[in-house]
């Protein structure tokens, strides 16, 4: 589970003046819940994930990750794959998964299941963008994370590749029962993945609307019920959605 309270997070902008990225943000996720955070670009989505993921400690707020007292693993998937180019695919996964024989076996099985068995010993530089993301996804799941943070992990991929990766993500999530916090500016993507969507305001960002999504899985951003929900939201909350990029249509090319 995940409980995030951020009273205030600011950083110096290019001119050196403080820029308040987040203020009065509260967010929680039940164990095993898939929460998408949607907001216009520049509303502090990445800032939020960096704070939750422990990449940024200069935050006025509180995080509670995982059950109290229990040890937990946190996975993180970035916008770009960020694989170590000098490590093979398998070694990239083992880097976070550990070097024990059991960890190795788990990594190999996971890579095979994700259809990466053939490129296990290749260097990431030889793989396509889509395959690199798949390796990054494997790296995130090899530790069987209690909490998985994802920062627009499927941007700049073509539609079929992105959809395939989304399918894999949902499958792995259902098997691992991780709590997922998935940040995106693509509302259709959010609707096709999430149990619940949280909408952020423009900076300073805070949650302005929460929307449970109980459409049956598997879903795809092109499904008609996703499109219906999208249209309904657009009609009901034009002000909230004004700053969002035009979902799947405009950007996944």
């Amino acid at each position, binding site marked *: 589970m995940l409980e995030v309270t951020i009273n205030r997070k600011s950083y110096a902008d290019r001119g050196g003046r403080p820029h308040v990225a987040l203020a009065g943000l509260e967010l929680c996720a039940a164990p095993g819940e898939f929460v998408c955070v949607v907001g216009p670009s520049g509303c502090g989505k990445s800032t939020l994930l960096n704070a939750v993921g*422990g*990449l940024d400690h200069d935050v006025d707020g509180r995080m509670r990750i995982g059950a109290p007292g229990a040890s937990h693993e*946190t*996975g*993180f998937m970035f916008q770009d794959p960020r694989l*170590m180019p*000098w490590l093979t695919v398998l070694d990239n996964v083992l880097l*976070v998964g550990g070097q024990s024989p059991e960890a190795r076996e788990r990594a190999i099985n996971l890579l095979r299941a994700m259809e990466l068995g053939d490129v296990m010993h290749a260097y990431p530089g030889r793989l396509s963008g889509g395959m690199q993301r798949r390796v990054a996804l494997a790296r995130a799941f090899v530790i069987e994370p209690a909490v998985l*943070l994802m920062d627009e992990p499927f941007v700049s991929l073509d539609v079929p590749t992105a959809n395939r990766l989304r399918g894999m993500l949902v499958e792995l999530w259902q098997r691992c029962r991780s709590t997922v916090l998935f940040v995106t500016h693509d509302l259709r993507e959010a609707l096709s993945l999430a149990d619940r969507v949280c909408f952020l305001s423009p900076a300073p960002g805070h949650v302005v609307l929460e929307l449970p999504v109980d459409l049956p899985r598997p879903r795809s951003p092109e499904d008609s019920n996703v499109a219906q929900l999208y249209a309904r939201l657009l009609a009901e909350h034009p002000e909230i959605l004004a700053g969002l990029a035009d979902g799947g249509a405009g950007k996944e090319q």
Partner: protein
Amino acid sequence: MRGAADEAGVLLMSKLRKAPRLSMPDVGADGWVRLASLGGFLLMWHVAAMLFDSTTLPAPVVVFRRMLDEMLSGLLPLHLGITLARVAVSFLLAMVVGTAIGIAMGRWRQADLLLDGWLVLGLNIPALVTIILCYVWFGLNDAAAIVAVALNKIPTVVVTVREGARAIDRGLMQVAQAYRLPRGLTFTRVYLPQLYPWLFASARSGLSLIWKIVLVVELLGRSDGIGFQLNMFFQLFDITGILAYTLTFAAVVLIVEAVGLRPLERRLTRWRS
């Protein structure tokens, strides 16, 4: 000044990267050109020696025969071994210290500000001065010799490694942080590999710089090693001896680079190909 030094480091790197690889075993068309060029040099040398017919320019055959004699007498291997040991120790010392300082300066602005002046000074002090001062302050011993050589090399290692440390990919470091990798693992698997190209650039230029300085150090204050022998031959005007020792030493350094450094570099940067 610093800019110039940095540029030199970077220039050096790009030059080294592009440097044609003279590899012994796989002799292709390039290899034959290389061999022909080497043969041409020997031929010119031989012709010149015949024309001048002077003891100050012995023919290649004479030099090679002398090389063999010195080898068999055991004298050349002895001095060569001593010199190589000095090269190895001062090379390692310079690389380790220079890398540590370079990383610190590339990473922390304060360290960079603090040490930059020293660095410029270090880059510009003539090798001879460092050597003389080390001998005067620490005595005519091996420790002083090695420190003198290392001190000459450290600043150039620092300049190159600092450039590498500045170019560290923050995104990859964040991966290590997000997955809470232990510090040791982060350093060896995430941080250090990013520095390999820079480390190899300074290692290669370092080796060629160090073996030249070691000879000067030996000439000035040691009673053994190739540099000492060269000085002796100079006193006796024994040019054949000088050439025999020099060629042997240069050949050994080339071999060390070809069978040691270059394969290691290829192994560690395999992923680039």
